[in-house]
Structure formats: structure tokens, C-alpha cells
């Protein structure tokens, strides 16, 4: 069963293309505000034309859930799988998977980007970062 795929638009295509090239990007406005997902206008000052900026790939886990129900058949053989809310050190937050065992996930744990391919789509997953601070 094929996994659900993102549907890149003219607006979001740079994000998905960057992942294919091996890095994670977010948007930043001239006012300094940074965010994901892609928008045409800064939600703080409403200026258009934000620029794409490469993320360090480091962040921390804000919260997570572990699915015991498959709402799509492609996830049935992945149960129980996690979805985590990660905050990048640059500020933007995104939903992702942590590739470590569910039991290893912890509040505010540092994580680092680990791009994985599902078919022809590159996804921004993360792994726990055990590097001493």
C-alpha cells in the first residue's frame, strides 16, 4: 500500500525540493520572524517575499503521540508508530517522525534531522541526538 504523499504547490515546492537535495529549509522574513510551513506573507508583519533559509537540522521534542490505530491502510503494518512535534533551534515547529524506538522518546529531548525516502518522496524525519552538549 502506497504511503500518502505530500502535494507540493508552487509555494511549498522549494521545501520538498530542498529535502530531496538533503537539507531542511524554513522561511524567514526581513523582520526576523521564521516559520514553517511555506506562506506568501510573514504572519507577523505581513510583508511578502520571505526568503528560504537552511536549517541546522537540530531541534527538540515538544510532544509526541504513538498511533495504535491506522487511519490509512499504509500505516497498518507500521503500528505502533510515533508522530512528534519538533521545534527547530531556529524557532519553526514541524510534525515529523522520530526514527528511534517509541519508548526512547522523551520530553524536550534534542533531535537531529535524518532525511528518509518513502518511494520518491524525501521526508524530514529526526533521530534522538545523543551527542553530549
Amino acid at each position, binding site marked *: 500500500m502506497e504511503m500518502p504523499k505530500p502535494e507540493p504547490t508552487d509555494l511549498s515546492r522549494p521545501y520538498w525540493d530542498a529535502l530531496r537535495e538533503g537539507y531542511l529549509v524554513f522561511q524567514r522574513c526581513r523582520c526576523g520572524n521564521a516559520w514553517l510551513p511555506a506562506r506568501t506573507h510573514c504572519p507577523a508583519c505581513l510583508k511578502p517575499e520571505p526568503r528560504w533559509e537552511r536549517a541546522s537540522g537540530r531541534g527538540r521534542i515538544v510532544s509526541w*503521540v504513538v498511533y495504535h490505530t491506522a487511519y490509512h491502510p499504509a500505516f497498518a503494518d507500521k503500528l505502533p*508508530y510515533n508522530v512528534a512535534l519538533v521545534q527547530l533551534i531556529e524557532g519553526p*515547529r514541524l510534525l515529523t*517522525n522520530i526514527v528511534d524506538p517509541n519508548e526512547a522518546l522523551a520530553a524536550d529531548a534534542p533531535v537531529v534531522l535524518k532525511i528518509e525516502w518513502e518511494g520518491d518522496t524525501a521526508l524530514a524525519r529526526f533521530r534522538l541526538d545523543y551527542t553530549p552538549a
Partner: protein
Amino acid sequence: MSLSGRYVIAGIGHTAFGKLPGQDTVSLNVEACRHALADACVDKSVVDAVFVKVPTSAHQFMYGQKVAEALGITPRMGGCWDQGGAANITLLSFAIMAIEAGQCDVALVCYADNPRSGNRAVYGRPRGDDAAYGWFSTAAGYGMIHRRHMIEYGTRPEDFAAVAIASRKHGAGNPSAQLRKPLDLEQYMVSPWVVDPLRKDDCALVSDGGAALVVMSAKRAKELGVAQPVPVLGFGHGQTSFELPQRATLTSTEAARSAHTAFQMAGAKPQDVDVAQLYDCFTVTVLMTLEDYGFCGKGEAGAFVRDGAIEYGGQLPVNTSGGLLSETGMPGLQLIMEGVRQMRGTARLQVSGAKLCVVSNQGGTMHTHSTLLLGN
């Protein structure tokens, strides 16, 4: 001049709750409105406004006009509002403000849906491009919030259980309730995971059904001979971002701003409240609403609900007819109706001498919140 106390809920009505195969949402709305008008003892000919909440499971174009047509009413004002479960109190507020502004005179506020026998796909829907990561369902968003509450405040599974146990206890004797099976802590702790940390018993029921309110001024209610009008003392609202990750915090809700407006309008304080009907789509919602409404400090709801404080006979009885966890999963009107019964003194689990009831409605994944204060 303040609106507080000058407008009333004149009548309440609902359909059966549970599984109602073969009934469309328009029919369920009509049935609920019929009962609400009968309860108010007024004829539909006086109604000149119909405010409808969109059916969650099936958004439709110009749905408000479909309902008005089926009711045989040509309203001066009305329409259909999408704000998730917070819409009911919002529509009631709109009705009051519209009557005050001379735009209409008597309003019906109603909602119906049939996701149980119809299509419940909305509750398990993919959440945009994040579905590629497996991000599906309404429950998962609440799971994120539930976990963060545990992380920040040390809230325990027993605390979430206390919310479900109270609603289920209150609903067990309610002949209209969909789930009349009491729950104890042991049963809760082995209830199957839906999306960990949410167990099945943390989650609202999926229900068919409809409900309706008749709204008018206190003066008009007197002229029309309404038997048991319940005055609206205050209302308020709050709204936040569409996507969960966009919120600065997961553990505060718009309940705080919403309640602040409502209590200010009513000239009342949380300490004055005798009974509460709090939106319990998921158990964490009740805990956070208790905190944000000021019934306890931030992070203290777990301790507050322990030892039966929110059960009938406790310090603050909550969801005395069973709420979304037991009576019906219908998003919110059942709570307003039970608030009306408590203020009339006709509730099955009547809180003796209750003079002030707070009702909360909430939409989406804590996207929207509305608060209602009822008196007698």
C-alpha cells in the same frame, strides 16, 4: 446597557442520541427545533432567525437555508457557521446581538449530525501534507496536548481518568445517554490506546443526533408566556491558529480569554459558579478548561479533580448529564441544554440551589472556545 440577563434561552429540544440510521441532518435539525419550540411553548410563526452550526461530518453549501426551508421559515437573519464545537455558544451570542440590534426577534439555534450511522471520516482525516508522516485524526492533536500537560505539570493518568469517570457516572442514569456504562479507574487503565497517550475512554463518543435552542429577549418571553426562560448572563470567545505547531504553547487554551469576557459581562467570578458543563471532547480539555477558567491554578487541575471534586455532590459538579463522553458526542449543545435544566431546577442530577452555571464549548483541536454563563 449591558445585555446580561436581558436575553433568555426560552426552550431546549433534542432528538434521540446514539445511532439513528436513515435520518439526514436536516431532518434531525427539524426534529430538535420542533421539540425546542414545544418546550418554549411558542409557535414557529414567531421565529424570524435560524442560526445553524455546520454538520461536522458533511459541510454543505448554504446549509442554513436548507434547514430554514425544511422548517418552513423564511428568516430575516441566519446562516451556517463553521467554528467547530465552539459554534453553538457563538451562534447563541450572535442571535442575542442580532435581536438587540433590531435585526430579528426570536431565533432558533440548532445543530445536527449523523457521523455514527453516516460518514465519520472527518475524525480520522489526513492533516494536509503531514499525512506523509502518519499525521491523521482529531484525536492525535489532543494527544499532543495531553502529553505536553503531563510533561509540564506532572499530570497523571489517574487525573485524566477522573474526568472520564465523572462524566460516565453522571451519564449512567441518564435515559437519553448513548453510553450508560459507568467506568472505574481499573477499567480506564486497561482501556485500549487510540493514539497514546489517549485511551478509548479519553475520547468523545461518535454520535448521531440533533439539538436546538429558542432564543429571545426576556421581555418577549414574558409577552409570549414562556414558562421557564433561563437568562443568559454572559458570553465570551477566543480563537487561535489552525495548525497545532503554530501555537506558542500547547497547555493554554483560548478558554482564559473567553471566560474573562463572559465573567466580566456577567459581573461574576469563577468562585460564584455552582455547576459547570465543560466541553469534554477529550479528558484533557476539561482539565485545561478548569485551569483556564480559574477554578484552580495552572497545572493544578489534576489535583483538583482527584477525590471526586467534579462529581455530583463534589465541590464543582461537572457535566451532570454525562457530556460528550457519555450522553452524546454531539459537539456542545447538550451541555447548554443541561445548563438550562440546572438553572430551571429540573436536572436529573440537580445541584441544589444552583444559581450560576458555566458552559464551555470548544472547536477543532482547541482552535476555538466559547463560554456561556446562565442564571436563574
